């Protein structure tokens, strides 16, 4: 399952923006991302699949769009 990964804020600084990754669910995806970008392990971010927040293991299908969203504090 190849999915498109988009990232925001400081997470995009680490991943460099858009990526395509093979993963069958969000847990596998997270692990794959951390292998490629070890500093992600120390960062907080929410995951949205196809414009919907997911908090549990979620199966991914071909061409899903996964967003990695960190919290921003500035005001």
């Amino acid at each position, binding site marked *: 399952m190849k999915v498109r990964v988009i990232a*925001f804020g400081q997470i995009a600084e680490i991943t460099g923006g858009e990526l395509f990754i093979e993963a069958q669910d969000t847990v596998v995806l997270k692990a794959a991302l951390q292998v490629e970008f070890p500093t992600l392990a120390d960062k907080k971010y929410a995951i*949205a699949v196809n414009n919907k927040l997911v908090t549990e293991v979620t199966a991914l299908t071909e061409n899903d769009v996964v967003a990695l969203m960190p*919290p921003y*504090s500035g*005001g």
Partner: protein
Amino acid sequence: MWWHSCRPIQEDNMESNERYARHYSLKGFGTTGQQKLAAARVLVIGAGGLGCPVLQYLASVGVGDIGIADHDTVSLSNLQRQVLFSAEDIGKPKAGIAAARLKALNPEISITTINGAITTANALEIITEYDVIVDCTDNFATRYLVNDACVLLDKPLVFGAISQYEGQVSVFNMPNQKGDTINYRHLFATPPNPLEVQDCNEAGVLGVLPGIIGTLQATEVIKIITGIGEVLAGKLLTFNLLNYQTYAFEITVHDLEAGVLPTNEAVFKATDYEWLCGTKAAGINELDAEAFLRTFNDADAIIIDVRENRELPKADFDCLQMPLSTLTDNLPEIIENNIILFCQSGKRSLIAGQLFLEHYKNQKNISHLTGGILALQEYGQKH
């Protein structure tokens, strides 16, 4: 609504306040919309980058009762984005200056200032007085505190946050199309630790960004009050200045927030949000810039810079350099009894403080400069 749709011409005659003429003639808004704004009470927490445009627009469109809560004073480095303030305001309280500017802009509305920090002791009694709350704060401790207070009081909360070139906007505690009510803890159940996220002081922010995000927040406030359009209830909208890309996703209800949200007033009041966000630790004294400068006269004190070598600005006072990265392996023996730590923003000095505290237990007094050398610089500009 019936009257509005059937007799639009007479409706115009009913209202003679030229100030809102463009609202009266606006289809779908009219006098009904204007009356709703006039009857609304909105509290803006934080009168900084986001707060300035939010306040400016809420006052100009005629929100009848506006509360401004801010504990800070104007600094030179604020003027790059905080458009309500002038160079002559440096050192003066933001809430008071903002109120004076808004009063000049629209003398027909009522403005209340809360010239102090929102805390667990005062949050509920302040927030309960308003219909809509706008989160324009710049730190996680206050964001979680305000979120939790709004959940307890069931108040709509218009959230805005910025980082460098990107911003986030959402509306919490308002049912979405499915009838679910979302709050910030559904998005991020617990606060990040201070090292996980950089704030504006560290990461910087383009001057116009809060202008755009704050204007989106003001728009959501108007939509909530008047019922026009679709409110961003439970949706997070992000905006990127560099390529104008927007991305929105639906925040979903789940029970991860259940264990972390204060369930009643007593639990809320007993929660220490600074501690929760890792910006305060037991056993480590917090020094503001003034108290930090006083330690220069203490013969039994040693001042330690825990930033990495060559970080700017360079300290222009006597201090020892001990980068945090070297402290984890071996902690040097210190003769002085008062250990004063500082770094760039106050995050690393707090962590260093915990290492010293573990090592020395209660044998030494350990203090750190809150807000770091950046706060010290700002203090210098004002005095």
